[in-house]
């Protein structure tokens, strides 16, 4: 009898807990630290949904592909177009059903599965205190004296490194390998990820670091430091957009849809600039935080669709590998 009562109590208790539904969102690691956008997204969304939003950080795409249709994720956030083809082909994702009219991206976006939430462009960031005459074009960078020290990321292990390989390919095409050969003597080293490169740059080990056009905004807003600049090149900058998507097999279809709708809402969009240090995907420029409005913007935006990126990836990486192996 006692056991039964206990069981009944236990069941009621779990039911009470279960009343608050849980939305599980897979996100990259940098998202969930106390300094990333995760905690603010969670706070804002939970205020709207009366639910429990749980971020599970890690390697989003490999994990989803590994789990297949048994994944617990309802939504994933933090994918990038250069790797979405495999994600799309897995058939794990459902259309986002969000009106794309509010988007303010510099390119047209019509994808019905992957929804952009912020963007930036690849760029070389430097400190005006350490580098007086930064190269003002990609050509100038290639022809810069060899004592210019730059640090980049490996396209085989880093999404920004891959974007750079595609960037060089977009500008130099068949001459990409030659461009890499010209760049080679200036490259101090190639790191696994963005963090290591940026650490080397802030430590003064390199004059320029492969980063984003939005990186200076962090220094302006968080550190009140206006000496960090992104060098803007007339040849154009490679567009990098971060995406969210809804799982087809989600057991919380309504909450997942609410979350997708929330992504382009003003609440989310006005927070994401300083949350993730990127341009909001659906917010007019005059509503960006002050520090972002000050940023130098590229006039030409280079971009490969996911099919193009997937088709060119091996070639672009090989040009990088051959060019730097000489």
């Amino acid at each position: 009898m006692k056991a039964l009562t206990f069981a009944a109590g236990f069941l009621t208790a779990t039911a009470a807990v279960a009343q608050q539904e849980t939305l599980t969102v897979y996100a990259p690691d940098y998202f969930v630290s106390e300094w990333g956008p995760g905690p603010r997204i969670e706070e804002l969304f939970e205020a709207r949904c009366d639910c429990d939003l749980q971020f599970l950080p890690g390697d989003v795409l490999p994990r989803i592909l590994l789990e297949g249709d048994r994944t617990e994720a309802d939504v994933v956030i933090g994918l990038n177009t250069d790797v979405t083809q495999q994600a799309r082909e897995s058939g794990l994702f459902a259309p986002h059903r969000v009106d794309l009219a509010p988007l303010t991206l510099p390119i047209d976006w019509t994808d019905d599965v992957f929804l952009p939430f912020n963007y930036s462009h690849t760029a070389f960031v430097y400190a005006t205190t350490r580098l007086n005459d930064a190269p003002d074009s990609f050509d100038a960078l290639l022809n810069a004296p060899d004592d210019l020290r730059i640090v980049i990321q490996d396209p085989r292990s880093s999404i920004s490194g891959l974007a750079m390989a595609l960037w060089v390919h977009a500008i130099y095409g068949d001459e990409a390998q030659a461009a890499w050969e010209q760049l080679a003597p200036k490259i101090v080293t190639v790191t696994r990820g963005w963090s290591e490169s940026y650490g080397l740059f802030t430590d003064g080990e390199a004059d320029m670091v492969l980063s984003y056009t939005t990186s200076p905004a962090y220094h302006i807003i968080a550190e009140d430091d206006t000496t960090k600049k992104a060098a803007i090149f007339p040849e154009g900058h490679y567009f990098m957009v971060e995406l969210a998507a809804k799982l087809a097999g989600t057991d919380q279809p309504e909450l997942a849809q609410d979350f997708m709708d929330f992504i382009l809402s003003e609440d989310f969009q006005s927070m994401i600039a300083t949350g993730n240090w990127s341009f909001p995907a659906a917010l007019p420029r005059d509503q960006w935080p002050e520090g972002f409005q000050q940023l130098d913007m590229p006039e030409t935006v280079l971009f490969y669709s996911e099919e193009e990126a997937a088709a060119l990836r091996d070639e672009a990486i090989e040009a990088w590998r051959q060019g730097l192996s000489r």
Partner: protein
Amino acid sequence: MAARPVALTAAPTTARIATLSAAGILAALTLGPIAAVLWRAGGLGAVTPADLDALRFTLVQAALSAGFSCALAVPVARALARRRFVGRGALVALMGAPFILPVIVAVMGLIALFGQAGLVNGALSALGLPKIDIYGLHGVVVAHVFFNLPLAVRILLQGWLDLPAERFRLAASLRLTPWAIFSQLEWPLLRRLMPGAFAVFFVICLTSFAVALTLGGGPRATTVELAIYQAMRFEFDLSHAATLALIQLALALVAGWVALRLSRGAGLGTGLDRLPLRWDGQGPAARLTDSAWIAVAGAFLLVPLALVVARGVPGLVLLGADTWRAAGHSLGVALASTVLCLAWALPLARPRGALLSLAAIAISPLVLGTGLFVILRPFVNPFTLALPVTALVNALMALPFALRIITPAAESTRADYARLAATLRLTRGAWLRLVLLPRLRRPLGFAAGLTAALAMGDLGVIALFADPQRATLPLQVYRLMGSYQMEAAAGASLLLLILSFGLFVLFDRGGRVRASA
């Protein structure tokens, strides 16, 4: 002299069962995940020309790194064994720290010393000399020596201190020349310890990834582990990843087998456990060389550490609740790993066990993590197991090092005392309590310290499993760096260094009962 351990008549079966089950668990934990990944992938993949380039570079850098670590350890360990000076104990302990540093922290420390804007280049350009460039194969080797030299020195030093004091007494009364001391006392010791140490360093360098990439300076320095990472993360080509992981494993086992074959040579017999006092090497030349070795090795190992500390101090105040919670998790993981690892190592402390354990560090952490994920996923939510799995895997990863430290002493204890124990009909419990454990106390303490510290610093598998509530400190360092918090990351790294080193010293001290060791 026949050094083969004589089988104990008292209860050999329980010992054998313990050894076999420890070995079985080890084999299952290393082969199981690869098999799971292969199963999930549906078969092996092809090896590309780029893979062969990576393989070639990996072998070259691992052989050079292991070779230099071992070769340089000989004069340094000998100098430390022969010299007595104020602060020697602290120096020996501190010199062990690089081995337990998280990779990213150590690399940043090395770059602060040898990098373009580092201290060395600062001094060189102040003197009007050309700058040195740390990036390249030599940079990779320097970094690996930085990591592994401390352990190599400690393994040798341990061996030197375990030489019976009576042998040196005899050598002194016979007025043996330094060369005779070397060839009669020290060379057999090196023959016994070095092949195994070389194999461990070779294998650990085989799986190097972030170090090789950051200091290698570009795609020429591509390792097999990077190819695995690429296959796993970017191409989601599991069969390619598993194929490369198997190649890595095969290389490690060959290296281990060769080491086992080479590692012959008897122990030097028993003594009365007196403090090893040395009468040799007291001439001015020997003093000078020893001091120079100690100074150079000390500077090489300690200056980057000091730079890590200096970089980290301002960041300590920036640490938030997340970081402190992560530190708590890491401490728990470290202690659990230590207990697991020692319980695992004791029955395996035999030459073949050491060979088998090499498999643990030869497996790409990425493949190991993915394999465990595939195995666990149908039964439990892997996220809830993040910390126990990390503790288990860290114990596994530390096992080869623990065994390398414990096995020589365990073997010679068995060789030297098994007959006596058999004559006295010691029970298994009495053998453990009265003979084996007291004799292993110092290596056990050292192994425990090492395991705890390694488990604090290892990122390994957690990246696949962790959720925000269960991050460990190294993961937190990466997260901070990923959010532009370079200063806080430096602070968190320092905290990690303090905690790792604290645990290491605590255990290591506990094991050192003989004060002057």
